[in-house]
């Protein structure tokens, strides 16, 4: 991901930001409040034909709300939405779609059980007489997907295709609707580097065809690569709109956070000598082959690898979420397999990459989420609710969790605050060994820095941490050692100077031997 | 149940005679299959009916080796139709004895059976179209209500107050209640309320409890079914008002009959509605097949009053009902 930065400025034939083209869709003086809480203050923003306009900001800065107002999901509390210069009042997303404004959600809006083709044509099915014209719909779906270099069979069920492909189907669906304005909410959050590259090429093509595109991402290098203009929001206020060529990624980050970001990564504390975790011969047929490693007290061990290399599966096997052959030893004691509870009692906890589906109960309040893992610590026949409330107080302070109301549903927290809550929940179990899977996925840079500092502090306090991440700078910046996985095997464990992008990538794509130079 | 015994007697005699003629006139290897379709034993009365059906079949199969019976019990009308279709298609039945779960839905399937030349005996509940069945054997629902009503009219005096527990809302229940109402008309007996107890002990218990809360004076209860009578009696006992009123149930459940035999003042009389009518129907059908005795027509088994004096005749300790 870090490789495209330098190339970015030259790509994309940009019409001047000072705009020959008139805005297709704009908001003017828009404010938004939910009950007593105001989340947007007097925002101006516009999208022009043939231009990619990136909207960036920390979690909770108001990006989602702005997008929802533009796409007709929510009417603003104040101000105007302008379509082709004239005020409009979208009564809902359908009306906005009819006007050519389509939003692609981070959580996809696809019917899982239907096929790709059925999804692409959902609501505007082609008919021949009274019957559905499947042949034509399939042909058109295939054509749309080919434009996206996506080899998915239109007859496959959405539930059977991979997450990146679902993203492509979402985009194909929008293309099929002849969108004039495409609003993309973190489209690359779930994509691999290669897939991201394909997507960005598609965006280039759409831009050339005159589509107006709103693009959000936490990956600022992507923003620099694709955007013509950049608008930064902070705490619901408009901070800056500037041509992308005038902004470096560092500058973007600084404006977003509102302070200077010194070093993103804290210094690495030195690990101790004692081995606290020893993993041997973990094997899950078809997924993991004979994986083994050790972890020392106070050490941060990074796990790198391509998506699908088996990192998550290995971690789940170690903590007892998956059945696997092999042996896990914690401080010399063998851990009984297949029991998350046993692992937790031995001081080993796992923090999932999928916080929405596996980490948090989105429909419950903060307290119930916070104490779920370590509930026994609050229970003496009955749950001590005062102790729970006190624990939440501590967690809010310690992890800087920003919630409007502590009784609110966790699903309404921003991604960064959810991640901090998940961390707090995990730490409440007072573990000695923490496995954190994708600690900063979908999180803004300010929160990232907080989480990095926290991981370093954990290690400094004598805990041991495993960080599984697809973001190489993160793995490199945090870890004392880095294990690289490829196709279910641990391809190598790097130390000291060996920890650099080239070596890691080479191991990850299965090129053994340190002489080979990856290109 | 004098009439039943009487009918049984003819049937048995005729069967015996038929049996004798059969040895002479009809080849022994001529075998018959009789299908019997009845509702499953979901409450006391049907339990009794199931008992009598199985009992009769066992007895007849022992007596007549050339007879085979296919018994099917169904929990709803649809299942009963399926059962009947299966009997015709796979068991080649020569005769069908059916107690229709409901009249209307069973009418055309049974008609189809009759049209195929199979002997049809209908029990208890008539079909919606007349003249389909070869033989109709039934209890007397009108009589059931009337006999009870007459007893109320005779025993109570003008201005006395009664409450009624009805069954599950069906034609059968309507016939009984209408006949009961007609019989007490003009007697001056006041019906305080009629609510459905669904032929169920628990429901009747609840309804009776509420009657007792609501009406300070009740002289008698027509519970229309012995299961409901048991629930009602329990509610009355709980309220401590046993002295105040008596209860008339119906269908001659053995527990009730036993209490009548001990002259329980709360249970002065009962009205028959014999579950053994199925025996009559099966016996007559068998008779029609194995002999040349003409058995077609209608047999209505009248409802009669059981009193402590004649209760012993109606006591069947082996029946589950």
């Amino acid at each position: 991901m870090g490789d495209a930065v330098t190339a970015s400025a030259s790509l994309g034939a940009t019409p001047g930001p000072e705009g020959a083209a008139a805005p297709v869709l704009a908001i003017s003086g828009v404010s938004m409040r939910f009950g007593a809480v105001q989340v947007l203050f007097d925002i101006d923003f516009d999208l022009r034909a043939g231009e990619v306009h990136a909207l960036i900001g920390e979690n909770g800065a108001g990006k989602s709300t702005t997008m929802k107002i533009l796409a007709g999901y929510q009417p603003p509390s104040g101000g105007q939405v302008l379509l082709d210069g004239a005020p409009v009042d979208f009564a809902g997303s359908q009306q906005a779609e009819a006007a050519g404004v389509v939003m692609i959600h981070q959580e996809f809006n696809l019917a899982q059980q239907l096929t790709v083709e059925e999804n692409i044509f959902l609501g505007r099915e082609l008919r021949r007489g009274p019957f559905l014209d499947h042949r034509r719909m399939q042909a058109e779906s295939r054509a749309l997907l080919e434009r996206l270099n996506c080899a998915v069979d239109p007859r496959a069920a959405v539930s059977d295709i991979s997450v990146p492909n679902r993203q492509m189907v979402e985009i194909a669906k929008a293309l099929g609707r002849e969108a004039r304005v495409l609003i993309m909410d973190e489209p690359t959050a779930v994509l691999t580097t290669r897939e991201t590259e394909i997507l960005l090429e598609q965006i280039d093509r759409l831009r050339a065809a005159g589509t107006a595109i709103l693009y959000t991402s936490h990956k600022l290098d992507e923003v620099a690569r694709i955007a013509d203009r950049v608008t930064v929001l902070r705490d619901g206020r408009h901070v800056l709109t500037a041509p992308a060529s005038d902004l470096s990624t560092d500058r973007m980050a600084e404006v977003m956070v509102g302070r200077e970001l010194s070093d993103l990564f804290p210094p690495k504390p030195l690990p101790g000598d004692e081995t606290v975790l020893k993993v041997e011969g973990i094997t899950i047929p078809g997924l993991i082959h004979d994986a083994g490693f050790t972890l020392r007290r106070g050490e941060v061990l990074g796990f790198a690898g391509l998506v699908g290399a088996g990192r998550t599966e290995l971690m789940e096997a170690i903590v007892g979420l998956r059945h696997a052959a092999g042996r896990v030893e914690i401080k010399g004691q063998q851990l009984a397999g297949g029991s998350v509870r046993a692992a937790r009692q031995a001081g080993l906890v796992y923090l999932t990459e999928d916080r929405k589906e596996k980490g948090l109960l989105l429909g419950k309040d903060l307290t119930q989420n916070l104490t779920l893992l370590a509930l026994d610590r609050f229970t003496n026949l009955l749950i001590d609710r005062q102790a729970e409330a006190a624990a939440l107080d501590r967690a809010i302070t310690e992890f800087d969790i920003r919630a409007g109301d502590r009784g609110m549903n966790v699903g309404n927290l921003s991604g960064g605050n959810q991640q901090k809550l998940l961390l707090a929940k995990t730490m409440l179990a007072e573990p000695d060994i923490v496995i954190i899977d994708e600690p900063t996925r979908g999180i803004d840079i300010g929160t990232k820095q907080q989480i990095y500092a926290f991981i370093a502090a954990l290690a400094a306090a004598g805990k041991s941490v495993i960080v599984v991440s697809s973001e190489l700078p993160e793995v490199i910046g945090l870890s004392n050692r880095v294990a690289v996985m490829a196709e279910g095997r641990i391809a190598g464990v790097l130390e000291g100077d060996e920890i650099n992008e080239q070596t890691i990538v080479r191991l990850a794509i299965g090129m053994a031997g340190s002489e080979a130079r990856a290109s | 149940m004098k009439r039943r015994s009487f009918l049984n007697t003819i049937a048995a005699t005729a069967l015996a005679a038929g049996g004798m003629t059969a040895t002479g006139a009809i080849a022994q290897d001529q075998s018959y299959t009789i299908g019997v379709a009845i509702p499953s034993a979901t409450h006391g009365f049907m339990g009794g009916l199931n008992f009598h059906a199985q009992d009769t079949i066992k007895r007849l199969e022992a007596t007549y080796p050339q007879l085979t019976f296919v018994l099917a019990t169904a929990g709803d009308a649809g299942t009963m139709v399926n059962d009947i279709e299966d009997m015709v298609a796979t068991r080649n039945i020569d005769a069908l004895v059916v107690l229709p779960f409901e009249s209307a839905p069973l009418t055309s399937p049974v008609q189809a059976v009759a049209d195929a030349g199979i002997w049809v005996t209908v029990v208890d509940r008539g079909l919606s179209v007349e003249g389909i069945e070869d033989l109709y054997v039934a209890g007397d629902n009108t009589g059931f209500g009337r006999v009870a009503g007459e007893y109320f009219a005779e025993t109570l005096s003008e201005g006395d107050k009664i409450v009624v527990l009805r069954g599950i809302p069906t034609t059968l229940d309507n016939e009984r209640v209408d006949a009961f109402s007609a019989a007490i008309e003009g007697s001056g007996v006041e019906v305080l309320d009629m609510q459905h107890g669904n032929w169920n002990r628990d429901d009747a218990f609840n309804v009776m409890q509420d009657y007792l809360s609501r009406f300070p004076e009740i002289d008698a209860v027509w519970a229309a079914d012995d299961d409901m009578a048991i629930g009602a009696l329990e509610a009355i006992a709980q309220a401590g008002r046993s002295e105040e009123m008596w209860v008339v149930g119906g269908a001659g459940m053995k527990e009730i009959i036993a209490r009548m035999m001990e002259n329980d003042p709360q249970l002065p009389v009962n009205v028959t509605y014999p579950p053994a009518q199925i025996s009559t129907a099966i016996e007559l059908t068998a008779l029609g097949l194995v002999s040349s005795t003409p058995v077609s027509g209608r047999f209505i088994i009248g409802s009669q009053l059981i009193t402590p004096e004649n209760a012993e005749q109606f006591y069947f300790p082996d029946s589950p009902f």
Partner: protein
Amino acid sequence: MTKTATSPATRASPTVNLHVLGPVLALLLLIALGAWLNPNFLSYGNVTNVLARSAFIGIIAVGMTFVITAGGIDLSVGAMAAFVAGLMILAMNSLIPIMGVGIPVILAGMAVAMVAGFIAGWLNGFLVAKVGIEAFIVTLGSMGIYRSLVTWIADGGTLSLNFDLRTLYRPVYYDGILGVAWPIIVFAAVAILGEILMRRTAFGRHCAAIGANEQVARYSAVNVDRVRIATFVLLGMLVGLATIMYVPRLGSASGSTGVLWELEAIAAVIIGGTVLKGGFGRVWGTVIGVLILSLIGNILNLASLVSPYLNGTIQGVIVILAVVLQREKKAAGAR
């Protein structure tokens, strides 16, 4: 969305949302209606009747609240109650020749009921949690099994408890302490313990977590299978307890005992505000739901408002209304 960090000093007070009041409101309306229609409605006798007869469904519905909260359902409870009642009567009748008529026989009968309930519940739970069959299907199957088993052991008729034993056992339904009947006392105790279990223990919290998202619960070191089985076992034992209160009432069991109790119990749970698909349960709401259902029947019997043929309609309308009331309050309260 907000930048205001919550000050740790502001403690969450138990907020009483408007939607919580929906079922309570419906109950109060019904009570007012009943009192207005019939002066005897609020009499000691009638109140005792209604509460005591609610006890069976009520005790079962409390257990059902846990099963539903954990994302399950149990359709077999009505048939299970009939079957357990049948077994209990059978056991007590056959113990009389050995033990004689006396309290030990009754205690033995109660033990049989609890053990039978435990086993029946465990079987349901085992099939759901360990074998992985949908709760709906498992309990639909066991419903049929128990219903036909009771018909079979009763030989299609009615199982009746020995008359002398019945006289001895009868007070368990009809008597009480200080004028409060035993079923009411037991129901109240079950409800209070259930509320505490749901609201204040790890078990209750785990039930809600499993119902809300089984994956999250698994990843949070909750022993999902064990909790799930425990909900069914709890329900089974409460069915046993309900049966212990039921048998002394009429002293009998038959194929028609407990018909549709499962639906009444489920309806009461949902009226009370528990979410049918799991994740949130409210035991006190269930109690309100049970009372609403019993009161509707009671008022209709007391008042003869409409043709008895329409009783079902009135019940249906009130059930739906109670839930709608709650839904609208919920939508308003959610902002």
